[in-house]
């Protein structure tokens, strides 16, 4: 098991991923040249506001971008050495939910209210592991036990409405990990949970990761989740990754003005600050992006060069930044 320093092998290598939506208002470049790597046992946080492209990035990796109007127009998603963007739909169905799985945000809608937990947790196992009968049943119970649902033998027959919000999110988690995925994408998995239940769930995900070595991608808008859960961070703005690095680099030494501003604008639990830094304006609409750096209109360091989109600069320690300030 890789510890904090010893890194595992690269299990997911996303390169120059582009997913566009062709709408009547124009081409929405929801994901526009996104690249990152993920190692075994590692947790990557993809942070951004609504419309930053973080969720479309995760849908692209799952090949679930609604089409039309959406289309993956370029790039590679190498999962265990194979480009899943070149897979046929049939090949994709074999790995979706198995090798690469997803935990969705809202446990109320992620589960089907008319099927019991047994059949919903068992579905992926039945399809991918070809389990049936008592083997399937015991595997489902095992999964529920793994996500610490009390009395799993009795509860497999229950329906979603018989579970509390936190327990439902655990069931969704059980479905996510049921086929031993290599990569688990967690899209804002705790936003609808209360603080004390969120803490339980995050602890559970960490334990599961320690047990199985699964690599996790956290899609979130919350730097608190990043600080608590992630090893590495990619910050997205208007469809692109503006900064990437180890979690401590990002917090101690943000290299992109957007990251810096975002971290400074969040109130802290640990101390009282009388005035928050506030970023002027709002994120630009993706169908009408400013030319050049998309953050420039809100950036206090903006200067003439920002009319051109900056290249991605590599900084010390593997940190990257898409900002002209880092040009040397």
């Amino acid at each position, binding site marked *: 098991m890789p510890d904090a320093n010893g890194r595992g092998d690269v299990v997911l290598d996303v390169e120059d991923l582009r997913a566009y939506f062709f709408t009547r208002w124009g081409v929405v470049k929801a994901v526009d040249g996104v690249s990152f790597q993920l190692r075994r046992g590692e947790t990557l946080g993809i942070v951004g506001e609504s419309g930053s492209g973080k969720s479309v990035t995760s849908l692209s990796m799952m090949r679930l971008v609604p089409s039309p109007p959406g289309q993956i127009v370029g790039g590679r998603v190498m999962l265990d050495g194979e480009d899943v963007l070149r897979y046929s739909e049939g090949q994709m169905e074999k790995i979706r939910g198995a090798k690469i799985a997803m935990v969705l945000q809202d446990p109320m809608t992620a589960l089907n209210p008319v099927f019991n937990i047994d059949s919903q947790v068992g579905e992926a196992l039945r399809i991918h592991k070809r389990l049936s009968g008592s083997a399937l049943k015991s595997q489902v119970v095992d999964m529920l036990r793994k996500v610490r649902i009390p009395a799993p033998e009795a509860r497999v027959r229950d329906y979603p409405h018989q579970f509390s919000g936190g327990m439902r999110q655990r069931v969704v988690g059980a479905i996510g990990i049921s086929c031993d995925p290599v990569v688990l994408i967690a899209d804002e998995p705790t936003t609808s949970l209360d603080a004390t239940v969120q803490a339980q769930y995050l602890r559970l995900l960490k334990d599961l990761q320690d047990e199985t070595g699964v690599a996790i991608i956290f899609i979130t808008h919350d730097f608190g989740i990043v600080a608590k859960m992630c090893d590495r961070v990619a910050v997205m703005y208007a469809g692109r990754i503006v900064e990437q690095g180890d979690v401590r680099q990002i917090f101690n030494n943000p290299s992109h003005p957007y990251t810096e501003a975002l971290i400074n*604008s969040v*109130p802290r639990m*640990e101390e009282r600050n009388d005035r928050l830094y506030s970023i002027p304006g709002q994120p630009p609409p993706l169908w009408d992006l400013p030319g050049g750096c998309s953050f420039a209109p809100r950036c206090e360091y903006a200067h003439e060069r920002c009319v051109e989109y900056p290249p991605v600069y590599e900084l010390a320690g593997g940190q990257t930044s898409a900002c002209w300030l880092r040009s040397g």
Partner: protein
Amino acid sequence: MSTSNGAVLSVEGLKKHFPVSRSLLGRTRQYLKAVDGVSFEIEPGMTYGLVGESGCGKTTTAKLILLLEEPTGGRILFGGEPVSGLKSDGLREYKASVQAVFQDPWASLNPRMRVRNIIGEPLEINTSLTKGEVRSRVAGLLEEVGLAPYQADLFPHEFSGGQRQRIGVARALALNPKLVILDEPVSALDVSIRAQIMNLLKDLQAEHNLSYLLIAHHLATVRHMCDRVGVMYLGRIVEEADTEELYENPLHPYTRALMSAALPSHPDIQRDEIILTGEVPSPLDTPPGCHFHPRCPARFDPCDSVEPVKTEPSSGHRVVCHLYGGA
């Protein structure tokens, strides 16, 4: 409880029990005790925070103060006067003086009304201003919340979430209220927009000497905004103190757990996690004794049978827990 030391608003033993099931004969068998004996005071120019998890009764408390629900018991005092005794004019004045900003700026503005009418409606109903005066007051309010007067002619869908919340704030300020109830005012907004709205609310408070009742679940936001905080659990305030005192010296095991569960602002901050077992029980079926005892890591003998009473271990710091004495 003292009532008259200049508090803008105080509530005393406020209760709201919703009947949920009836027997065949129409007699109520079960009550949902959403708010079950809540007391606090809001001083002029100050912000009082109510924190707690979903279902703890914080929003019902706000609805009671806004007179959107009728209390089952207890009193609301406005400037020392019981609100329940107010008649037409007094009631109108109370309703104008107590305004609200809601959580979801997509749901809380009528999509078919222009901003001019959204902000102007309370003025038309409650004041005798002429059309021209309403027009200039709306323009002034828009500028005060950081929007431009020409935007009065637009519809809500033409604004972003942050701008819509500004419209909601302008509407709340239209009648020069004394108290504004802020029910999760930033939690539906994007991270980069939240700071703008929080700063705006603080600026307006300083300028107009407003009192706020902030309802929130995010502890960092509460620390940033509030002067005094009450922590609610299952319809009751279990701990109350001035903000700094509460965050530096939380007493109730629930407050401690809540704080330990709050997400850190830096990866190097490691809190001793007090992971509570289970979830908040249904308010339909509250546990006997202390409501928190089934989840409490510090429970001992009396907790599952005797209800704890409020004690004040240090001045202004009140807690309802057997650990701190009382009966």
